[in-house]
């Protein structure tokens, strides 16, 4: 059987157990993951059409705000490309994001942090990558916040990403961080990733070319899914 999706380099990702991240202690399987090459089951997955999106789904500044109002905080565009490991754009794939508000508070019944909720900020958004793999959100920059991990732990400002690929083997969840945040080096969740080089790929860069004067700054964040073999790529081209 032709291998259609490149193997995952497990050493590039955080291991299941990262003791300094306390929640992983009771939630990490202790036995090694059993490997098999993707079957039809994992080479396929759900597809989503642009027509499912509402006008404001990708605009976190407005998608929970009352009419005429807007979320509070530094206004930012988060944009980039969804690519595979061969640098090919991954088009028409659902990207979902969620985050704390500008004060570092999530709209969730279990988040009791001191920072107030913003009545005009929900904290989630979604979009679908374009034909060139590009995607874009508007939001407010989330704040860092403290979290219960046994010490004086603060999460760096971050946005969670859930991303679909052509097949479930490419499906992933990750987090985007912001260039220059000193908490990145202190965070046990980030530092569970084995190499600084890998961590660096999750750090979005200020993008002045896309920044709109007197309006909104931009951060650039490219997302990379596992590579797809030539055969699958050719099949998809035929299907277009």
């Amino acid at each position, binding site marked *: 059987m032709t291998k259609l999706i490149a193997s995952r380099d497990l050493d590039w990702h955080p291991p299941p157990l990262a003791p300094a991240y306390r929640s992983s202690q009771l*939630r990490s399987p202790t036995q090694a993951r059993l490997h098999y090459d993707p079957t039809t*089951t994992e080479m396929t997955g759900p597809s989503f059409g642009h027509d499912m999106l509402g006008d404001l789904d990708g605009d976190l500044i407005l998608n929970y705000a009352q009419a005429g109002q807007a979320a509070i905080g530094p206004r930012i565009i988060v944009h980039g490309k969804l690519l595979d490991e061969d640098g090919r754009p991954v088009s028409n794939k659902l990207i979902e994001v969620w985050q704390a508000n500008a004060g570092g508070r999530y709209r969730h019944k279990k988040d009791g942090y001191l920072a107030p909720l913003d009545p005009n900020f929900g904290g989630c958004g979604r979009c679908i990558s374009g034909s060139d793999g590009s995607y874009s959100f508007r939001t407010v920059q989330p704040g860092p916040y403290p979290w219960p991990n046994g010490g004086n732990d603060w999460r760096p400002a971050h946005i969670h990403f859930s991303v679909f690929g052509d097949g479930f083997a490419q499906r992933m969840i990750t987090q985007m961080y912001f260039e220059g945040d000193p908490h990145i080096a202190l965070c046990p969740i980030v530092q569970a990733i084995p190499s600084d080089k890998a961590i660096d790929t999750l750090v979005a860069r200020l993008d002045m070319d896309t920044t709109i004067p007197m309006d909104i700054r931009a951060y650039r964040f490219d997302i990379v899914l596992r590579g797809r073999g030539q055969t699958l790529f050719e099949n998809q081209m035929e299907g277009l």
Partner: protein
Amino acid sequence: MADLKESPSQTAGPYVHIGCVPTFAGLEGMFGGQDLGEHMIMGKPEGVRISLNLKVIDGAGDPLTDAMIEIWQPGPDGTFGPTNGFSHWGRQPTDSYTGDAVFETLLPGAASGQAPHLFVWIAARGINMALMTRIYFPDHDNAADPVFALTGDRAHTLVATPVDGGFTHVIHLQGDNETVFFDV
């Protein structure tokens, strides 16, 4: 061609429900007030309807109440569709109190060369990279399935338990009955 590396995974954190099932999380009206993947059956497709009740148990024996589970499965004809009235894909939060995640779906058929199964994908706080596992059904020739056969004396951790109206299945993250997870 560029030579890039897959973006490293990070945990979905304790608030994955905000992003993936916002209506369940209490963000009233978000995305039209309908959580994606909540309903797998949208018409009257042919096939056997089942209710699949999943639970994920941590190393202390407690159910995860902040997880998100997705399933992807063949339809009754063993293909991945598209199938009229059936999405093949479902997404459910684990309940905030009981930890139950309930999927109303169709009994899968045998995909080519494989026994009937569902692919399961689990994201939650404390899980650094989403877990991949499968669910098989009793009273099938599962041993002939190449993935099932890989699991040896741990194969029983992948087999669902029949109950009235469907199946239940408990996924153990640790312990004597630790479920088999895959690197696919």
